[in-house]
C-alpha cells in the first residue's frame, strides 16, 4: 500500500460516517493505479449524473 493511499484511507476511516467516502476513495485509487489520471476521470465521470439538454420527459417517458 502506497503512503498516499494508506494515509488517506486512515484519515477516512478515522472519521465517522465516511464509509462510503472510503469506498469511493478505494475505487478512485484503484482507477489511478490502473489507468492514471484518465482512468480516475473516467471513473468519476461515471458517477456524475446530469439532466440532459432538453431532458424534459413526460409521464409516458416521451421527451
Amino acid at each position: 500500500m502506497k503512503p498516499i493511499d494508506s494515509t488517506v484511507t486512515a484519515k477516512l476511516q478515522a472519521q465517522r460516517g465516511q464509509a462510503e467516502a472510503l469506498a469511493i476513495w478505494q475505487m478512485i485509487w484503484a482507477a489511478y493505479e490502473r489507468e492514471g489520471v484518465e482512468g480516475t476521470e473516467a471513473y468519476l465521470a461515471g458517477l456524475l449524473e446530469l439532466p440532459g439538454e432538453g431532458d424534459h420527459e413526460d409521464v409516458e417517458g416521451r421527451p
Partner: protein
Amino acid sequence: MTVPLANGERWRLVSITVRQFRGVAKERRFEFNGRPGLLHGNNGVGKSTVALALQWTLYGRFPEGVLPNTAYDRFLSPIHLKGKPYSGEVVLSRGREKLVVSRDGPTKEFKLQIGSTSWSGPEAEEKRDAVLGLDMDSFVRAVVLQQSRIRALLLDDPRERNKALDRLLGMDTVEHLLDVIKPREYAKAADAWRAKVRAEAQRYEERERLLAEQLEGAQQRARGLKFLNKDFNPTGLRTRYAELGRDLAALGRKYGLDFPELPPCAETRQVGAVSRAFQKGLQAVRLSSELRQRMSPIEKSIATLTALREGWSERLQRRDRAREAIENLVSRHGEEKRVLEGRAELEGELGDLQRQLKAAGALRQLLEDALAFVEREAPRGCPVCEQPLPERFDLGPRLQQRMESLASEEIAKLHGRREKAEARLAQAVEVLRHFKEGRVELDECQKDLERHRQKAVEATGGVGIAENKVAARLDEALAKLAQEREHLGAGIAAMEQDLEAIDLRERALREGLVPVVEKRDELARHEQDGEKAKALHERDDGRAQRMEALAARLEAIRKALLDAKQELASESLRKAGPRAQELYGKLVRHPVLDTLEIQATPRASKVDYTFTVSAKGSSATARDARLVLSDGQLTATALALFFGLAESAGHELDFLYVDDPTQNLDLPCKEAMARAIAELSRRRQLVVSTQDEDFVSFLETAGFRQEAVIHHLEAWDGTPTVHTVAPA
C-alpha cells in the same frame, strides 16, 4: 578516501548496457561495479543517453509530461538508424546477489532475473517494484537528480514552484487526484436535478391552470347554449345525444321515413361518428321525405310545360314571320304566278332581240362583201340582176353610208333594248328565288309548329288542340301545377324548419357540450399525469440527493488528500531537514542567513511550501529564500534539499544518479558541491554526469575521482567514443 563496495544490504549499480539506443549506434556497456562513477565530456557526446537508458530499462516509461505527444520509438531509436530495434540492460548487485533487468523496445519485452530465477512481463514489473522498493515516480524523485527538476524550484510563479516541490516530494499524485476530484460538479448536478424538478412541476401547474381556465370558458359557452351543469359529464353527453337520436327518428317518421337510431355517444371520441350518422339521417329526411317524393314529378312537369309554353310562342312567331315575308313579296311583285309569266315574256323578248341583232349583223356582212367587190371589180352592171348601172350612179359611197347607218344606230338600239330586258329578267329571277325560299321556310315552320302542338297535346292529356288554343291550354295546366307546388312547398318549408332546428341542436352539442366534456377529460388526464410526474420528480430528487451526497464524500476525500499531503510532505521535509540544512551551510556558505527551513503549510484547498532562510537563533531575520538568495545560491539550496530527500527516502537502492549538478553555481560553490559529493559517496554509490571540467577537477581534489570509475566521453560520431578508467 575509502569507498566501500556493495554493503550487502542494498542494491548498487554494476553496469548499464545500451544497444542501438539514442546516441549509441551499436552496443555500449558502461561499467560501474558498485563504485562511484563519473561520466564527463562535452555537450552532445551521449552523457544524457546513459541516464535515459537507466530510467527506461528499469521502468519502460518516463514521468508524465516529459515526452508529451512523442512516440517512444521515435525518441529512443538511434537518430541515424530509424526503425532499428533498441534495447537496454541494467545490472545491479547486492552482496553476492545479482539482479539483471533487460527491456526490448519494439517487442516491449521486459525481463528480470535474480540469480537463476527470472520473470517477465507484468510479473517482472511487480517483482522489480517489490525488490527495489520504489516505483518509477519514486525512482525519478529519489534516485535521479536532473537539473530540469531543480530549475523548476526557482520559477517565479508560486504554483509552478509548488508543482516542482510536489514532484520532488512525490506529492504530484495528490495534485493529479485533487485536479480531477471536483465535488462542485456534483453539487452543481444536484442543483441541476432540483431545477429540473422545479421547472417540470411549474410546467404541470401552469398547464393545469390553463386547462382549468379553458374548461371554465367552455362551460360558460355551453351554458349560453342552454346546457346545464348536470350535462357536463359523459352521462350528460350520452343522454343528450340519445335525445337527439330519438327526435331525429321521430322527425323521420313524421315525414314518412324510417331509419336506424343514432349510435350511442358516451365518450367524446365517438362524437365524430355520431355526428356523421346524424347528418346522414338529416340528409335522408331532406331528400327522401314523402313531400319531396310528391314535389319531384310536379316540378318536372312544370319544367316540361314551361319549356313547351316558351317553345310554342317562339315557333308561332317564327311561322308568322315566314308568312309575312311571302305576303310582302306578293305586295311588292304581285303573285308568284304573275312574276313567272313576266319572266316568260322577258325571255321571249330577249329571243326576238337576239334574232334582230343577228339579222343586222348578216346584212352588214353582206354590205361589206358588196363594197369590197365594187371597189375591186368596179362593175358596170348590177352584180345581182346584171342590169347596167347608170353612168353617174355612185355605188361605193352608197354602200359605205348604208353600212355606217346599220352599225351606229340600229344595232345600238337593239343592244340597249336587250340590256334592259336582261335586267328585268334578272330581277324577276331574284324575286322568284325569294318566293321559293319563303315557301320552304314557311313549310318548315309549320311542320315544327305541328310537332310542338302534338307535344302540348301529349303533355296536357287532351286528344287535340286547335292552334289558337294551345297557349291557353298550356297556361291552364301550368297554373294548376303551380298551385299544387305551392301547397307542397309550404309543407317542405315547415320540414326544413324542423330540420334546421334539430341541426342546430346537434351543432350546439358538438360546439357547446362536447368541448366541455373533452376539456374535463383532458384535465382529469392531466391530473393523473401529475400524479405520475410526482413519482418521476421523486426519482430526480433522489438523483439530486445522490449527487449531493457524492459531493460531500468527494469533499471529504479532497480534505483527506490535502491532510495526507501535508502530513507526508511535512514528514519527508522533517526527515530531510537536518541533512538539507547541513548541505545548505556547506554549499551556500551565507555569512548571515545560515539556517534553512522548508515547511509544508496547509491552506484552505491546497498545501503551500515555504523556503525560509534566517540567522541562527533569530526568527526576526527569517526571509523568503527567493527574496534574499541569488540564483546560484537558490540552485545550491535546491540541491541541498534534493540530497537531503534522496538520502532520507526509504528504498532498496544504494545509489544516486546526479546529472549535471553545477549549473548556475560559482566556482566556490562547485568546489563545495564536489566536496559534498565526495563526502556523500562514502555512504552510498554516486554516479555523477557533468560537462563541467572545473567540477571534474574539484571532484579530483575532493578525492572522488580517484575512487570512481571514470567514463570520459571524448567525442561522438554516430556512437560515443569512451575512454574508461577504473581504480585498480
